């Protein structure tokens, strides 16, 4: 029987859930047996390479591919002309995977080649002649909003205004959220601080570049193997772009070397499929690191104004934010989520957040852990910190005084359900880290963060084998340990040891549709579906036991992995274990399996509080992270090691965002640091051990109380580190990343 929120009792006594079982993919990954996107090969396979625009903004007058087609070994060349009409919903994707009339950013794909060797493909790319008319470009968000800025898309008229403007601009849409009288609230405050912040675009930095192998048969049926966060999404988008029936295309997700949101869309898969269609051969495309940085989906760069009023007792009287996010050359930046999340940690009577979605000559942004929220939290939490300092108030006390709690009205509208923000703040206040002494040039920062989390379409199939072991098929790629957590939830429900359950990621032909692995949804949604599928199988096993015993099924109960008579009145029968029932399955009615197909809803929102100590070297501007502690509500930590890993990973990516990482564009609008030598992500030697404190405030929307944990951990670090550096340096930092030159400039040293 499916879980029913509000009717089922939340389970809190666990045998497998909450334990640190061995990771099921561990051995494969350390021995090299695991197959990632680039590991797949096929007989007769060709290599695909993509030609990319060297210009930030240019009209494509003509593409001549004749010389490339004549190269020995070349089997196909495709351009935008090979992608015909498609549904409106994927028009921007079509434009992004292959430039049509204009190249819109440095690295925008303009043509692709498939050849028998990479060398032949490379030679052919050099022979493709593209006649460009170079156009004025803009890459900075504030510059892009100016009336004098080059208009990138002359069909773009700002939405969300009272009146639609007459002229096109680079502002795609205006969003507004909030409630109450903000101006009156600010007037009531003892102190109002207003600041402007800027953040640069960053990349998810997944270690595995995008890679895929596509194979189209002459019968119109195709296969794709790829590293993706959503192979059903790949099927949906690729089939729409190539005019295929969705079911004619089967997509299999490989192991994945990180995604963090950046693999929730497609870049190379439709191109590989088009090349395969044209050449009638399998085609493999693997992005280089340079291509990943130039032409996949980084975050927005932002410019944010914050105004907050506070009374001397620490009460926040009002909050006001204006957020400007450039999301690359297409509308759809994460600004609405930034605006919604900006003040979500605070229970405010008057709050307003206005967001502007801006386009610029940069790659189309993609999701990155809690998309849009880290930058908004950075700006809001920086001003709250400054207010606390000016009014000589403890930053944790102030946050507790104003914290959102159960039932309070969220800054983006609805009232919160059961939430754990206060619990994280109290855990931080009680932790030894908060009382530890600081030395010279050292500072401490505090910040909170919020993310929505959601559920979505999910399909799970659970098969009971004749030997009593379990095959569990899910359709959500495992990017953070979900096979372990989902398998453990199935084991918990069935009452069998965790190592009797093998969880796999099934292909698109083997399961119903599954939404992408995103929104911190998988442990919640696929876990919920696995629990429901296990209950479905348990129901069937109870029926088999009832048949064997000759009693009504209502007189059978399932406990500790076995069917048992529910009362003495049901007769005296020895329990039938899952293995006992499985062994007789064929004779008692055939194979036993459980299924669940749901649109999982009831995901609980998530909050975190981060504490960080840094030391600033006033001579060099170098910032060393001395100590870092994450406090986050997991609802119920199904596999604590993976939960801690999510907390630590989010903190580390936030440290990179805060201190080092940035997209640097030259005056010509081209990316200057398209490699990991110049785009500096943190490595182990840059970091202290991140201390992870799991707080558990159960989510009433899940039978075990689970909340998603994958995204919230990246929301507070930007602010926490900036507050810490500002404390250490004695000057308020307002721009990210806080690279040594920026710190020295803030200190007045250069």
């Amino acid at each position, binding site marked *: 029987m499916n879980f029913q929120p509000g009717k089922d009792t939340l389970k809190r006594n666990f045998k497998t859930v909450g334990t640190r079982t061995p990771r099921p993919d561990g051995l494969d990954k350390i021995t090299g047996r695991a197959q990632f996107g680039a590991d797949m090969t096929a007989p007769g396979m060709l290599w695909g390479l993509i030609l990319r625009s060297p210009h930030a903004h240019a009209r494509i007058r003509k593409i001549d591919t004749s010389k490339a087609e004549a190269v020995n070994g070349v089997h196909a060349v495709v351009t935008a002309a090979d992608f015909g009409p498609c549904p409106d919903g994927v028009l921007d994707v079509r434009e992004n995977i292959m430039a049509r009339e204009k190249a819109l950013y440095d690295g925008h794909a303009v043509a692709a080649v498939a050849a028998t060797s990479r060398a032949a493909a490379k030679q052919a790319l050099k022979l493709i002649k593209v006649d460009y008319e170079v156009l004025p470009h803009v890459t900075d968000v504030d510059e892009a909003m100016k009336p004098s800025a080059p208009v990138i898309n002359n069909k773009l008229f700002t939405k969300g205004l009272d009146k639609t403007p007459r002229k096109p601009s680079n502002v795609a849409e205006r969003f507004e959220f909030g409630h109450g009288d903000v101006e009156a609230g600010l007037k009531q405050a003892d102190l109002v601080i207003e600041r402007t912040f800027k953040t640069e675009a960053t990349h998810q930095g997944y270690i595995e570049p995008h890679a895929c192998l596509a194979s189209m048969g002459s019968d119109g049926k195709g296969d794709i193997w790829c590293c993706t966060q959503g192979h059903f999404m790949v099927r949906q988008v690729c089939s729409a772009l190539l005019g295929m029936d969705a079911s004619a295309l089967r997509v299999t997700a490989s192991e994945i070397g990180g995604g963090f949101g950046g693999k929730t869309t497609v870049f190379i898969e439709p191109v590989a499929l088009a090349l395969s269609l044209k050449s009638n051969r399998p085609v493999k495309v693997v992005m280089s690191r340079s291509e990943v940085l130039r032409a996949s989906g980084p975050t927005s760069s932002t410019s944010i104004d914050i105004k907050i009023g506070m009374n001397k007792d620490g009460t926040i009287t009002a909050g006001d934010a204006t957020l400007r996010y450039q999301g690359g050359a297409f509308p759809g930046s994460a600004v609405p989520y930034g605006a919604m999340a900006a003040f979500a940690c605070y229970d405010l009577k008057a709050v307003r957040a206005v967001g502007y979605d801006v386009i610029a000559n940069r790659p189309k942004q993609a*999701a990155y852990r809690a998309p849009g929220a880290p930058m908004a939290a950075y700006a809001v939490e920086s001003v709250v910190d400054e207010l606390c300092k000016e009014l000589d108030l403890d930053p944790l006390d102030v946050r507790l005084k104003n914290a959102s709690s159960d039932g309070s009205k969220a800054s983006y509208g609805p009232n919160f359900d059961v939430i754990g923000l206060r619990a994280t703040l109290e855990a931080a206040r009680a932790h030894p880290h908060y009382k530890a002494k600081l030395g010279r040039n050292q500072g401490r920062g505090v910040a909170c963060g919020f993310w929505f989390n959601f559920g979505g379409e999910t399909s799970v199939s659970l098969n009971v084998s004749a030997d009593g072991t379990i095959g569990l098929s899910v359709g959500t790629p495992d990017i953070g340990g979900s096979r372990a957590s989902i398998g453990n939830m199935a084991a918990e429900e069935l009452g069998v040891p965790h190592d009797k359950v093998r969880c796999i990621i099934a292909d698109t032909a083997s399961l119903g549709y599954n939404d992408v692995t995103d929104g911190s949804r998988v442990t919640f949604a696929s876990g919920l579906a696995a629990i429901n599928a296990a209950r479905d199988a348990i129901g069937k096993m109870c029926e088999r036991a009832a048949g064997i015993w000759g009693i009504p099924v209502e007189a059978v109960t399932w406990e500790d992995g076995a069917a048992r008579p529910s009362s003495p009145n049901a007769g005296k029968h020895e329990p039938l274990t899952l293995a006992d029932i499985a062994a007789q399955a064929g004779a008692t009615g055939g194979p036993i399996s459980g299924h669940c197909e749901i649109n999982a*809803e009831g995901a609980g929102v998530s909050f975190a509080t981060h504490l960080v100590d840094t030391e600033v070297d006033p001579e060099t501007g170098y910032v060393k992270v001395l100590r870092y502690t994450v406090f986050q509500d997991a609802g119920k930590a199904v596999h604590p090691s993976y939960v801690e890993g999510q907390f630590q990973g989010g903190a580390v990516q936030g440290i990179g965002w805060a201190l080092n990482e940035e997209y640097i564009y030259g005056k010509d609008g081209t990316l200057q640091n398209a490699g990991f030598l110049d785009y500096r992500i943190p490595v182990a030697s840059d970091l202290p051990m991140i201390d992870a404190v799991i707080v558990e405030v159960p989510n009433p929307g899940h039978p075990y109380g689970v909340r998603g944990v994958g995204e919230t951990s990246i929301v507070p670090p930007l602010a926490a580190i900036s507050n810490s550096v500002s404390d250490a340096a004695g000057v308020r930092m307002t721009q990210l990343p806080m690279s040594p030159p920026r710190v020295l400039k803030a200190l007045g040293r250069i």
Partner: protein
Amino acid sequence: MVKVQVWGSLKPALEGADEIELEAASIREVLDQLSDTYPAMKQAIMRGVSVSVDGRMYANAIMVPLKPDSEVFVLPKLVGG
């Protein structure tokens, strides 16, 4: 009556109203009525919205039943990372 609110920049689509009341038994009925009554809302709904019902977020579910006094909030369609 179900109380329905929309995010700030869509308020003009509701002819300036902060909140409207509807007879609706599901999210689908709310969205259908908003689309039928307010043309500017139709465009936003077709582009995709998320809906909060009594504090719980529904990213893409229209069959969710509503109580007579449910509070419904129409928000931009959520994505995650």
